[in-house]
């Protein structure tokens, strides 16, 4: 079947390099953001989240940066590995959380070259 990764922007990196995936969000009232990873044939997997009262949050090999001034979110992956190859997309909470719904971006395909 057709992959969800088709027609998406693609970031190609060498194994061991750092990756930066960007996301622009639309609603200045959003106060919560999430990054998901989706491997081919699987459901989206939660990676890391950040609230709007923070500029940066770190996890294991991943860092999320939030710039509320320009409504921009980025996901940094350190020492990228072949297992990181997947589609990554961000999500924001709708209407500042009043509806408990998330709005998802369309995603970026990360291709890790050995």
């Amino acid at each position: 079947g057709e992959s969800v990764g088709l027609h998406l922007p693609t970031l190609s990196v060498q194994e061991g390099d750092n990756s930066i995936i960007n996301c622009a969000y639309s609603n200045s009232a959003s106060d919560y953001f999430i990054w998901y990873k989706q491997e081919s044939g699987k459901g989206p997997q939660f990676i890391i989240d950040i609230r709007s009262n923070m500029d940066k949050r770190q996890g294991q090999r991943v860092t999320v940066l939030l710039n509320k001034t320009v409504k921009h979110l980025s996901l940094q992956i350190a020492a990228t590995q072949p297992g990181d190859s997947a589609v990554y997309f961000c999500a924001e909470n709708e209407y500042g959380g009043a509806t408990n719904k998330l709005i998802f971006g369309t995603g970026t395909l990360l291709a890790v070259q050995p």
Partner: protein
Amino acid sequence: DAGITQSPRHKVTETGTPVTLRCHQTENHRYMYWYRQDPGHGLRLIHYSYGVKDTDKGEVSDGYSVSRSKTEDFLLTLESATSSQTSVYFCAISEGAGTGAYEQYFGPGTRLTVT
């Protein structure tokens, strides 16, 4: 997959037939969601539930109905399947904003083909 199962995982059906997809969770989360995922569109919300017998429409609800008679089960029904409903369907769960937990956890998906 955070205690979420979907059934069936794959289904091929003919135009005009009814189809029901099931989502089952073992996490006792209040919120459950049905999404469809199509190339170029990302995840789009079909319907969601904020409690037993409490449901609401998402952005692409036409042609779909849902039911939630128990906390653990959320059913998605296509009353009369059309080819435009060929897609991958994902169920998700969330504790809910009241707990400060907006994150949603997804099931493995159901690939539905309508011929």
